[in-house]
Structures are given as structure tokens and as C-alpha cells.
């Protein structure tokens, strides 16, 4: 799943699609934590709580990222990430 996210990030042009890919990646991490916790260290709940907080963080990230994307959409009327190369080299 993480890898899917990676793939999506790199291939998609639409910034929102990229964001979706990022969500996938974060989710993959969450699942990892939960699984490791459950399978390897069932004694405590650290992984689970990490996941919990990670979800919160992911939410915050997404919110902010979407705000920024909308913001740039207002400026360029476009969400194509490949158009964002005014600054380079």
C-alpha cells in the first residue's frame, strides 16, 4: 500500500490525487504499527496509540495541504503539479 502511495505520488499530475496517494502511505504506516503491535508486542498498546496520533496528524496535514492546494488553485486555476516548476535549477 505504501508503495502504491509512492507510485501515485510520482505519477499523478493532479495535486489532490497526490494527496490521496499520501494518505495511502500514511495509512500504510498506521496499519504497520497496528499490526506490529498486535503480532509482536501484544503486551502493550504503544503501536496502537501511535496509530491513533498518526491519524490525527494525518488529518491535520491533509487539511492544511488541501487549504494550500485550493489557495494555489485560486491563483493558477489549475491543480496540475507539473506546472509548478517556475523555480528550478
Amino acid at each position, binding site marked *: 500500500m*505504501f508503495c502504491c*502511495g509512492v507510485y501515485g*505520488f510520482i505519477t499523478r499530475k493532479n*495535486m489532490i490525487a*497526490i*494527496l490521496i496517494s*499520501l494518505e495511502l*502511505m*500514511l495509512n*500504510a*504506516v498506521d496499519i*504497520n*504499527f497496528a499490526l*506490529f*503491535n498486535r503480532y*509482536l*508486542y501484544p503486551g502493550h498498546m*504503544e*503501536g496502537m*496509540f*501511535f496509530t491513533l*496520533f*498518526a491519524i490525527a*496528524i494525518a488529518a*491535520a*496535514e491533509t487539511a*492544511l*495541504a488541501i*487549504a*494550500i*492546494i485550493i*489557495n*494555489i488553485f485560486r*491563483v*493558477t486555476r489549475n491543480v496540475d*503539479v507539473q506546472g*509548478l516548476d*517556475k*523555480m*528550478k*535549477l
Partner: protein
Amino acid sequence: MDYSQFLAMKQEIGLLIVFLLVFLYDTFLPQRAGKGLPIVASLLMLVLTVAGFFTCFLGSPDVTAFAGMYATSPVMTAIKNILNIGVVIVLIQSIKWANGELMIMRRGEFYELLLVTLFGMYLMISARHFLLFIIGLESASLPLAAMVAFDKNRYESHEAAVKYILTAVFSSAVFMMGLSFVYALSGSLYFNTIGYAIIGQHSTMLCIAIAFVIAGMGFKLSLVPFHLWTADVYQGAPTSVTSYLSVISKGAAAFAFLVIMAQVFGAVYEHIWSWMLYVLIILTITIGNLFAIRQKNMKRFLAFSSISQAGYIMLGVIADNTMGTAAMMYYILVYICSNLAAFGVIGAIENATGRVSMEDYNGLYKTNPRLSVVMMLAMFSLAGIPPFAGFFSKFFIFTGALAVGTVAIYFLVGIALINTIVSLYYYLLVVKAMFISNEECVIPTFRSACSERLGLWITVAGIVFLGLVSPIYNWLLEITAPIASLFV
């Protein structure tokens, strides 16, 4: 539950109080009082800094709170204070910008966000648990994305924000992925516990975990090849934000990185991460320099310069000893002063004329001698020319690194030294532009704002005296001595 534990976090609490005061000021005072906000914020930060130094000198004991999730010690207090100083300078320098037309609506938010990121950095530094660390990391980077986008009228600002947030989230995903592996290996997220758990573990998984952790931190430190966002973001962001990003954020990350590497992965220094870092340092310094050579935009130029500076800072990490740590902290302090001086000048000129290209600086000395002298001092300090502070910091960090004493480290330092020549080249290009080149349309003489001048004076004082006045470095060495146990 013991809520008194919060009291251990003196600086964080102080910072939150400042944050609250700023918030309240911004929310409840009428619009026209808003002009005072930057000054108030600066003053509050100053108070916090001074208070922090008092704590420092009165002797703050090693404290851990929340069952070892949070720790503070003189070293941490010191590094936080160093960051505070930088923040104060940034705030002072940005007063004019913050009071500008553009910022009327968002002045308060700027300060609030800035303080939150600083809070995040505090957490990063003091965290002894990866969850807290992640939260600190995110607090330190996410609001910055918003700050990067503050310059609403400039397209670059938006583009920079997008690039920043996307890579930031990506890198935090990678980082967390690495953490999940670490967790899988050790079953804990406490630094100490992990540290013990991985002794003797030499698995592929650990390698990839460490690589991901380094990558995640490398993003904040802008180590090559995790640095690619840096230039674009520095260029696009408002100058005040760029300066904040380049020094404070990097400084905090560097220290946090040191703590992680030493405390968590200290056991596998020799086997795994010293070599990873070795390669990264070489790449960072070299590629940063190579890119910096060609830059025409001053902010972009400084971005690449700060990338290669990060490489030098990492020498303090790879040294893996107290001398390296002290040298690194010292380096950060000096770097804060030098880089902020440079950004201060750039900001002053940008505010006055809106020009940021290196060609615009041609013949600057003729019209604005003081600014160009400050810029020159900054460049010399960054290049490591005595008697300015940069020389001392570079010398000490090399000394710290060479304490390792292996042939490999001599080679590494040799490469770093050769790179200082390249870096000297491009720093001198700026000096050349200002002092030697002649231009038809020179930036006209202008008088920079009081606040900007004040900020520059502070940085100049730093550049000149930080090196020559030895007690500063001696003190840093002294306070880092107790953490010797961190290192193998």
C-alpha cells in the same frame, strides 16, 4: 496522574504563554493596535530568551518527565536558548515586513504559527519518545507550510508552499515507516528502550529503518539527496520565513538528529549509520556547493549554501563525541548569526527595492556601504574566514570530527576542507559583486528601518564576538560534558 510534571517543561510552558499572549493580543485588541504586535512579540520572545538564560546559568538539573517521555538538561536548555536568540533576531528583522501592507490581515497568524513551530522544535529536542518526537516534528514543519504561503501576491510563494507541504508529508510518511520498523524491532518507542533493544541487532531491517529515519530528518536538515525542496521553498517563501526556515528549523533538527542518532542508534554507529552519514555528508557538502556556484537569486543561493552548511553541521554528528556536540551547537549559533545577517541584508534590500538577484548587488558598496559590509562579514563568516566566528566554528567542528581519528574521517574532513574552497568561491562572488563590480543601475542609497538595523547589529556583534570571546564555546563544551555517556 501527576500534572505537576508539566512544570518541568519550563521553557515550553513559557513559550506557550507567549503564544497565548500573542494570540489574545491579536484577537482582542482593535485593528489599529495591530501595528504594535511585532514589537510586542519580539519583546516577549526576548523576555523568554533572557529568562531561559537565567535558567541556564542558575543551573537547570537534568529532568525527565512523563515517565521519560520528556527530558531536559542544560544542553537542551542551551540549544533552546540558542534557537530563541535566533528567533528574536528573526522577529526583530521581520518587524518591518510584518507591518507592511501585505501582512495587515495575517500579522497575528504569522507570529502564532511561528511560535507553534518553535514549540514543535522544543518538543523535538526534548522528546525521548518517538510519538512526542513525531508530533514535535509535525508541529515544526506543518505550520511552516502555511507561513511559506504567506506572500499572497507572489506566485512563487504558493508554489513553494505546495512543494513544501507535499514533500514534508511524504518525508514524514517515510520517517514513520522507518519508525514502524524500529518499533517492530524493539517493541518500544522510548529512545532508551530502543537503544538497548537494538544492541547487537545487525539486520537489514534495521538498516532500512535507520535509512528512513535519516531520510526523514534529512528532509528537515536538507541533506542531499533529501534537499531538493530547499531551494524552491527558500526562494519562494517570504524572506523572514526563509531565514527562519534556514537557521532555526535546521538548528533544531540538527540537534534532534544528534540525539536520535546517539541515543537511539548509538549502538550501531560504527556498523551502520556512520557510513550512511559519511556518504551523506560528502554528497551534501559537495552538491550543495556545486549548485550554489551558479545561483543568481540571492535567496536561492543562500539555500544551497545552507545545504552545504548542513553538511558541515553533520560533521558534529558523525564525530559522535561531546566535542562534536559542543562544536555543533556552537556552529549552529554562529550559523544563526551569519545566515541571519545575510538574510537580514537581503530582506532589507528586498523590502526597500524588491531586488534579490546577485547582479542587483553590483556596486552596492558605493551606495550602501554599511549593508554591504554586513553582508561581507556574513559571507566571510559563512566561508570560515578568521577572525570572524565562522572560522572558529568550522575549526572546532573539524577538530571534533577528527577526534574520531580514523583514516576515513581524515579523508572526510579533507573533502569538507576542499569544499570550503568551493564555498569560498561563491561567497566571494557576492563580495565581488558588492565591492568590485560596477553597474549602471546600482541599488540606490536607502535607509533601512530601525528594526532591521537593530537586527543586523546584533548579528554583526555575533559574527565578530562569538569567535573571539572564548567563554561561549568553553561554556558549551562544559555543558555537553555530562552527555558523554550518550556516545559509544
